[in-house]
């Protein structure tokens, strides 16, 4: 509440100043290059990093309750939720999470995919289903979001430079105040971590937006941290397996290099 008032005040003041400036002097071009992402670290970074299971499960909750209204995550399937290396819900929990989600049903016996009112027929998802998209196509998504397309989130962390830090900064960056002289475009929101500073997404997270079942306090930073962890896993579900395999490979290769070096020296000892 307080933040909104301050933002409103600042924007108003800024706008007034801007008008004043415009009236008296030629407009100065503002460099709206996005700010460098915030320097936050995550448990999964580094050669021995792993995903925090609790963060992954809480992150799924944030995705499901907040983000999935506009953002698809189509490369994720419900069966990924109980697989090792991920949130590691039990199979029963994963089935329940799937059953709580509706997906378009295939044609019924009469070959229909919509009912008499034109609503698409849906069924509960199973483990085999991918997470459904909130919109049937790109045009519907744009129409519902002021012309901007909410990107699919299953790869977003890999599809951005410094992905985890970038997404975290966007999610927690709405509290910044627009500087004097910057006008936020109608229907957009100010976020200095987004290129151009005008973002189509309204601030999705507030303190207590979700209520965590494990009792963790749901501050904006916590929610952002958890959903970024979840999205990082969504981009790279095999990361833990990769690092584990890699450790074995490195140990083996170093051993092999040692043995081969000794052989090399032995073979060449008499040659020089």
């Amino acid at each position, binding site marked *: 509440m307080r933040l909104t008032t301050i933002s409103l005040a600042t924007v108003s003041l800024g706008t007034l100043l801007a008008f004043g400036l415009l009236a008296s002097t030629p407009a100065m071009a503002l460099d709206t290059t996005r700010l460098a992402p915030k320097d936050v670290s995550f448990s999964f970074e580094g050669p021995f990093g792993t995903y925090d299971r609790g963060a992954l499960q809480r992150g799924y909750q944030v995705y499901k309750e907040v983000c999935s209204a506009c953002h698809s995550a189509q490369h994720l*399937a419900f069966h990924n939720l109980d*697989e090792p290396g991920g949130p590691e819900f039990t199979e029963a929990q994963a089935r329940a999470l799937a059953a709580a989600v509706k997906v378009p049903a295939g044609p019924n016996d009469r070959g229909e995919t919509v009912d008499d009112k034109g609503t698409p027929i849906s069924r509960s998802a199973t*483990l*085999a289903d991918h997470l459904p998209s909130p919109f049937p196509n790109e045009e519907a998504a744009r129409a519902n979001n002021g012309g901007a397309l909410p990107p699919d989130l299953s790869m977003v962390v890999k599809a951005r430079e410094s992905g985890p830090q970038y997404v975290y900064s966007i999610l927690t960056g709405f509290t910044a105040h627009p500087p004097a002289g910057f006008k936020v475009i109608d229907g957009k929101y100010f976020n200095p971590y987004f290129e151009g500073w005008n973002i189509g997404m309204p601030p999705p997270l507030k303190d207590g937006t979700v209520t965590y079942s494990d009792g963790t306090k749901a501050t904006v930073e916590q929610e952002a941290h958890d959903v970024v962890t979840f999205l990082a896993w969504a981009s790279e579900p095999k990361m833990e397996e990769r690092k584990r395999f890699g450790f074995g490979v490195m140990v*083996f290769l170093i051993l*092999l290099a040692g*043995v081969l070096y*000794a*052989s090399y020296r032995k073979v060449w000892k008499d040659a020089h």
Partner: protein
Amino acid sequence: MDAGTRRDFLYVASGALGGVGLAAMAWPFIDQMNPTSATLAAGTTEIDLSPIQVGQQVVFKFRGHPLFVRRRTPAEIAEANAVDVNSLPDPLAYNDNLADNAPATDANRATKPEWLILIGVCTHLGCTPTVSTPQMPQGDYGGWLCHCHGSQYDTAGRIRKGPAPRNLEVPQYAFLSATRVMVG
């Protein structure tokens, strides 16, 4: 002599270690051809039995094959029970829920006699047999007739006449409730 054996041991050790590494790295390239986790997840089908009427068969898709779910009438169940298993061309149950040598009694073909669940692939050359109904009988045994080469199955899906060597396969399944069954 000592230096010679030590050198040989070193070479053998290098070669062996290299070979082990190569063999270990071969596994991922072999395993990648196994069914993917998506295929495995899609490998089970949950079926809602409530809309199926007595005497009706519904065909579902299961692992790329037709799946026959038939709600048998008491007459069909009695007919299946009356058959002497030893006189059958294939006396084995061919039921994935049981041991390989289980006999083809009706109880071994349908745990709940009312519900007969079969893979709808003729065991001769793979065609889909046609179900026999009182309105349109197929074959002489009240079960199925395969139109490709004339194999005839009875009301427990067992081969009775024709070139098919085995009874229709019973897949793995488990009842989740009176009206829901999980196949696979």
